[in-house]
């Protein structure tokens, strides 16, 4: 009897990396229980079939113009965010725990912001060092005692999570200013529907369609003029901004107008938009512009950018800004190590989500530790994002490490360090090897918080943005540094 060699299937040669958690298979290469249906279906694919799905998906994204602008290029070159059709999959019970942890964290961060822009109880009781908070670059002392309309400051949050080798999710950073990426979550799902429809139907995956409606209701809930006559706009820096696709996408999904700063003006502390039939009042601004560019009269008298008088209108509670200005203090990586203390202080609870051990260079002992162990650590600037201002100690050259040593000694408050976490991997299409290969991923869930008569109420989009480091051995998932994305599937739990 001649036994034919088994055909090469997608998973026949897939092996997870040693010392790393894989999202889809265990250390022996067997599918995790919640991923069984997906694994079984994909195992039936020949590599050529997946390659075909992959190129179809890329074609769909280009045709729809799902692109981001590349920053360094003045002519506004556009690229698609590289997309891998193999989804990242999360079990229902695991997601439920994450969701509870995210809500808890957001609740504490919101109370923290109310406190530091109000009575500053947490500073008076020395739970967090005063100089860390008041010395943060994005703390805005002039906003102290200014109350946001509707009592909400963090309407839209994106919390970056990573998973360590034991399978534990850890918060890596908080984004409470203008977190981006949600449009890719929705578009990635659209693409999956086009190229893997039968897989999606079969697997039982939670919908993400509700995001735009939830966001619109979130905006409406903080309208200073009552919710029936609310005029809402989305404020974008313009079509050359790297996240412009997302701005236009969300405006379209919500049916609200996309405006640029020059479309708005302020008269008698009230905001108006210029229209072809004269000025029209604006109540809620979902702004995708950094604090510093909102209002030249408030932030930069020498600047022509922004809407002069906007901050006065905000302080007079005539317009809601989503998110509220001043939230950047929570994104500061030297404030981050104190979030568990905030949760205990404000909520009297133990944190449900783990974090990553962080060494704050402003602290004398931590700084000495960091400088002694630069080759082992990842050093980050406290107020930069997008993978900029970082030193990856294990990969860096001696000269790069020396440069960071000098920088840390010059401005210790600006730097923190962490041990590199072995990010979990997910099977990812490797176009060169024509096979699935383990690539590292993170996860950015999005949390919306609206104002209700019973106080702020949060909603978490099932899943979030899974970013993937497409290069072999890479740990950097940022789109600006060669990262891509995946659809994130949260499985439906047992129906109750």
């Amino acid at each position: 009897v001649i036994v034919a060699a088994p055909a090469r299937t997608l998973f026949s040669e897939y092996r997870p990396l040693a010392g790393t958690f894989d999202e889809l298979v265990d250390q022996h290469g067997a599918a995790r229980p919640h991923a069984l249906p997906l694994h079984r279906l994909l195992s039936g694919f020949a590599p050529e079939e997946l390659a075909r799905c992959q190129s179809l998906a890329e074609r769909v994204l280009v045709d729809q113009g799902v692109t981001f602008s590349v920053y360094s290029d003045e002519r506004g070159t556009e690229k698609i965010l590289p997309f891998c059709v193999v989804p990242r999959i999360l079990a229902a019970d695991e997601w439920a725990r994450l969701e509870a942890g995210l809500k808890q964290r957001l609740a504490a961060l919101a109370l923290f912001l109310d406190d530091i822009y109000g009575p500053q109880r947490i500073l008076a009781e020395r739970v967090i060092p005063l100089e860390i908070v008041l010395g943060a670059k994005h703390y805005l002392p002039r906003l102290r005692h200014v109350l946001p309309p509707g009592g909400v400051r963090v309407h839209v949050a994106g919390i970056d999570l990573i998973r360590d080798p034991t399978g534990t999710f850890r918060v890596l950073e908080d984004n409470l200013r203008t977190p981006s990426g949600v449009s890719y979550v929705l578009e990635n799902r659209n693409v999956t529907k086009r190229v893997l429809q039968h897989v999606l139907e079969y697997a039982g995956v939670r919908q993400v369609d509700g995001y735009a409606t939830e966001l619109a209701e979130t905006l409406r809930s903080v309208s200073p003029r009552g919710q029936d006559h609310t005029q809402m706009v989305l404020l974008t820096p313009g079509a050359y901004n790297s996240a412009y696709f997302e701005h236009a996408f969300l405006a379209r999904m919500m049916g609200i107008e996309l405006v640029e700063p020059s479309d708005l003006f302020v008269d008698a502390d009230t905001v108006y938009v210029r229209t072809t039939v004269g000025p029209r009042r604006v109540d809620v601004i979902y702004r995708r512009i950094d604090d510093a560019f909102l209002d030249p009269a408030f932030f930069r008298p020498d600047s022509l950018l922004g809407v002069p008088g906007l901050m006065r209108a905000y302080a007079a509670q005539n317009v809601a800004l989503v998110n509220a200005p001043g939230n950047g203090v929570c994104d500061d990586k030297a404030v981050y190590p104190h979030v568990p203390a905030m949760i205990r202080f404000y909520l009297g609870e133990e944190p449900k989500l783990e974090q990553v051990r962080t060494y704050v260079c402003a602290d004398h002992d931590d700084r000495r530790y960091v400088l002694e162990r630069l080759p082992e650590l990842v050093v980050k600037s406290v107020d930069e994002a997008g993978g900029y201002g970082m030193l990856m100690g294990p990969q860096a050259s001696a000269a790069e490490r020396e440069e960071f040593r000098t920088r840390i000694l010059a401005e210790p408050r600006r730097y923190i360090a962490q041990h590199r976490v072995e990010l979990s991997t997910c099977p990812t299409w490797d176009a060169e090897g024509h096979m699935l290969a383990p690539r590292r991923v993170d996860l950015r869930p999005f949390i919306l918080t609206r104002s209700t008569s019973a106080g702020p109420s949060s909603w978490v989009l099932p899943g979030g943005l899974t970013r993937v480091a497409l290069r072999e051995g890479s740990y950097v998932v940022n789109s600006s540094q060669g990262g891509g994305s995946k659809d994130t599937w949260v499985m439906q739990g047992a129906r109750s």
Partner: protein
Amino acid sequence: VISRVADHCFWFGRYVERAESTARLLGVTRELVFDAELPPEQCWQPLVIVSGEYPSFCARLGIEAAGNGEAVQQYITWSSENTVSLRSSVRAAREIARTVRDTLSLEVWQEVNHLYLWITGGEGQRSYTHSRQEFYNHVRRCTQLCLGLVRSTMLHEDPMRFLWLGVMLERVGQIARILDMHHHTLSGERPHQVVELSLWLCLLRACSGFEPFMRRNQGRVSRAGVASFLLFEAQFPRSLRYCLRSALSIMEQIWPGKEGVGARPIAALHALGSWFDALEPVARTISIHDLLSAVVDRTSGVCAVLGQEILGPPRPPSLRSAEQPA
């Protein structure tokens, strides 16, 4: 509608219509060279003249090149130095579509994005090399589909009206140019009657007017008949009269009041319409070239007034990098 958005919609309409018209003109002229048995320079040079690019074309490529069909097509189709080239128009339409992405429907955006990717990627170039007529037809189909989708998938309110206003006013200028081009072609040596007939038929085809004209005139083709049809036929959507009236009616829908915002462009367009109507009885006695030049100039005047009315005084440039990538 936000003033900036209105202005962008207006220009989106103009650029898409301009791209269509340019593709029409090139395709039809190419057929003319085969059909009319005219020397190439008599067909191609007028096309460069009516595009308004004759001086810069000659400065770059020399006067001789204006008689070279390939050189003219290359310049009018692809040149990035030529701001009214087919590629420049498509690029501008798509660039604007991106800045008002939320106002256009998904279908409209996809169509203009497809055309842009087709033209700027290799596909368009291949089609241009291997099947020239198919290339022009594809551009026309895409632009027509795009404008059709505007009417069938967008809300019929001000953004769409501004867009359509741009289409109509651009079309006025383009028809006037096409007509004028034939004036140039004929103004040389008096061509043979068969040649003249094919010129007029070609002109009608360039304006999608062949069948409507035949229906109106029971198959009788004359120089005066064709000119009169393209100038004054009120029911033909590519006649000057139709486009001017349609533009006026759109403006009156946008600004229903007699006074206040919108009064100036309405008055300007109204004056142009009255002047044009008064010409009909005397059209055969005056120089058609002068008439068409006046139409083009006065339409530009209306567009300028409209631009001031929509946008007001100039404002600072838009913000480029205020949101950092996260």
